C-alpha cells in the first residue's frame, strides 16, 4: 500500500508522539489512560497471536493475564522482592499456558474456544472461591510499585514510560514474530493445517509454541496491569475481561500489528468515556459487538479502509457522471 520509507516515517512520528505524550497531555488522569491503553494493547497483541495468526480463538485469556497478576500480587503481599515476584509470575503464567494449551489443543475451532472458556472459568473459580489463598472477592492489594535501577515508578509519568518501554518491546517482538519462519509456519497451520502436516511440520507443536508465546505476553500485560492498579480481584478473571480483549483484537482487525493496538485504544477510551456518563458499559459493549459483526465483520481498521474506498469510489462516480454526460457518454 505505502512505501517502506513512508511507513518508517509514520512509525517514527508515532514514537515521538508517544515519547513526548506526558509533556503535551499534562494532566495525570490522561497520562494514566494512556498507560491503560498501552498495557491493554500488549494484552491484545498477545491474544492476536492466537486469534489472528494461529486462527485459534481463546476466551480464557483473562485467566493467564490474571495468573501473572495474582502470582505477583500474592508474593509481593507475602513480602518477597519485586524481581522474584515478577520472575515467578512469568514462570507460573508460562506453566499455566502450557497446561491450558495441552488441554485446549485437543480441539480446534469451536471446541478450542469452548475449552478455553471452561478453563478460564476454572481459574475464575479459584480466584473467587478459594478465599484462603486469594482472599476471594476482596482481592489482593499490592504494597507498591517497583523501582527498577533506582527509578521510582510511583508517579503517573514514570509508570507511563515503563509501560511504553514494555509496549515497544512487545510490538517489536510481534513484528519479528510475524516476519520469522516461525510466524509463517503459525499462519500455515491456520490456513492449511492438513498441508502443513503433509509437509512434515508438527502442527500441534507449532500451535503449542504459539500459545506459549501468547501466554508469555499475556502474563507481562497482567504484570503491568497489576502494577498499574496495585490491586487485583476476581473481576479481572471473569469472562468479561476475556471478551473485552477479544473485542479489542477483533474491532481493530485480526492478524495485523496495528489492529489490536487501535482496538485497545478504542475500547479503553470508550470504556472511560461511557462509564463517565452512564453506568451501562455492558450494554454498550454488547451492542458494539453486535454492530461490529453486522456492519464491519473484518474489523475497524480494514473495515474503515473498505468503507472509505467505497465512499471515495461513490464520490468519484458522482463527480465523473456529469462529465460523462457532457461527452455524450461515449466513454469506453
Amino acid at each position, binding site marked *: 500500500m505505502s512505501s517502506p520509507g513512508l511507513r518508517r516515517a509514520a512509525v517514527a512520528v508515532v514514537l515521538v508522539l508517544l515519547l513526548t505524550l506526558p509533556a503535551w497531555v499534562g494532566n495525570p488522569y490522561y497520562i494514566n489512560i494512556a498507560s491503560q491503553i498501552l498495557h491493554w494493547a500488549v494484552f491484545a497483541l498477545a491474544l492476536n497471536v492466537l486469534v489472528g495468526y494461529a486462527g485459534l480463538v481463546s476466551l480464557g485469556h483473562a485467566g493467564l493475564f490474571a495468573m501473572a497478576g495474582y502470582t505477583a500480587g500474592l508474593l509481593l503481599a507475602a513480602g518477597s522482592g519485586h524481581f522474584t515476584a515478577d520472575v515467578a509470575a512469568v514462570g507460573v503464567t508460562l506453566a499455566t499456558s502450557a497446561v491450558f494449551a495441552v488441554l485446549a489443543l*485437543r480441539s480446534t475451532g469451536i471446541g478450542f474456544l*469452548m*475449552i478455553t472458556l471452561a*478453563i478460564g472459568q476454572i481459574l475464575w473459580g479459584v480466584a473467587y472461591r478459594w478465599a*484462603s489463598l486469594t482472599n476471594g472477592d476482596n482481592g489482593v492489594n499490592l504494597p507498591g510499585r517497583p523501582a527498577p535501577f533506582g527509578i521510582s515508578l510511583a508517579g503517573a509519568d514514570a509508570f507511563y514510560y515503563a509501560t511504553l518501554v514494555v509496549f515497544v518491546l512487545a510490538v517489536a517482538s510481534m513484528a519479528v514474530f510475524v516476519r520469522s519462519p516461525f510466524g509463517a509456519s503459525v499462519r500455515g497451520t491456520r490456513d492449511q493445517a492438513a498441508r502443513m502436516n503433509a509437509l512434515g511440520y508438527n502442527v500441534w507443536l507449532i500451535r503449542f509454541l504459539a500459545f506459549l508465546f501468547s501466554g508469555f505476553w499475556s502474563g507481562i500485560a497482567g504484570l503491568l496491569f497489576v502494577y498499574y492498579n496495585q490491586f487485583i480481584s476476581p473481576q479481572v478473571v471473569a469472562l468479561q475481561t476475556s471478551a473485552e480483549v477479544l473485542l479489542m483484537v*477483533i474491532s481493530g482487525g485480526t492478524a495485523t500489528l496495528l489492529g489490536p493496538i487501535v482496538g485497545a485504544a478504542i475500547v479503553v477510551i470508550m470504556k472511560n468515556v461511557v462509564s463517565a456518563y452512564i453506568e451501562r458499559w455492558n450494554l454498550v459493549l*454488547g451492542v458494539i459487538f453486535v454492530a461490529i*459483526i453486522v456492519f464491519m*465483520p473484518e474489523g475497524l481498521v480494514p473495515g474503515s479502509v473498505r468503507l472509505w474506498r467505497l465512499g471515495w469510489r461513490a464520490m468519484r462516480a458522482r463527480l465523473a457522471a456529469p462529465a460523462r454526460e457532457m461527452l455524450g457518454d461515449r466513454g469506453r
Partner: protein
Amino acid sequence: MSLWLTLAVNSVALGGLLFLLSAGFSLIFGLMRIPNLMHGSFFMLGAYLGVAFLAKGLNFWAAALASAAAMAVIGGVIERFLLRRLAGQELAQVLLTLGFSFVIADICLMVWTGDPIQPPTPPELRGAVAVLSIFFPLYRLAIVAIAVAVAIGLWLMIDWTRLGAMIRAGVDDTPIARVVGIKVSRLFTLIFCLGAALAAFAGVMGAPYLSVYPGLDADMLPLALIVVILGGTGSLLGALVGSFLIGFLYNFGQAIFPDLAYVILFLPMLLVLVLRPQGLFGRVAS
C-alpha cells in the same frame, strides 16, 4: 447419614435442572455447531420472565410455559435474522452471541435490579413425600420427573420421528438433505427455538430453588458447557449422564471441599478431554 441423603436428593434435583439447560445447549452446539454463548442468558432471562408472569398472577406452570414460549420467539428472531447470516463463521457467531449475552445481562439488571428474587414454590409441590420412612421434598422430585420426561420426549423425537430423521439428515449432510426437499434452515430455526425454550423453562423451574440474580447467566453457561463436553457433543444420553454427574459433584464437592468445589466441578471435564476428547457418549471429537 441424613446429611448425605439430603445432598444426594439435592444432587439429583440439580442434575435434572442441568439436563433441562444443557439438552438445548447440546442440540444447538452439538447438532447445529452454533457456539451459543447466550445459553446462560436464556436461562436467566427465562427465569426473570417467569417471575414477571408470576407477579401478573399467572399460575406457576403457566408462567413457566409462557416464559418458554417468549424465549422461543426471542431465540428464533436472533437465529433467523442475525445468526443465520453468519452460517459457518464461528468467530462471528461467538461474538454475536457474546454481545447479546452482555446486552441481556444488562437489561435484566436494569429491569429487575441487582437484588436476588426467589419466587415461592408452587403450592401443590410444597412439602415432602415419605418413601420407606425417608422424606423427599416434593418439588425436587418434580424437577427430576420433568427432566426425565423431557429426556424421553427429546429422544423419541430425534430418534423415532420423521422430524427427527429430517433433523439428523440436515445435520449430517445439509446439501443432500436440501436436495431431497427438507427445509433445513427452517428446521434449524426450530431447534434453536426449542433449545431457547428449554433453557427458559429450566430457568423458571430452577427459580424457586436457586433464586434469580444477576450473574446467574455466567454461573449456568459453564455448567452447560462442562455437561456437554463431558457427555459428548450432540449426545442426549451424554447430556443426561453428564448433568447428574455434575449435580452430584457440585453438591458433594461443596459439602466436603468448600474452597475447591468449583474447581472439582471441572476435573471430570479435564480428564475426559485428555483421555476421551469425544466425550463419554460422543461419536466424534468436538
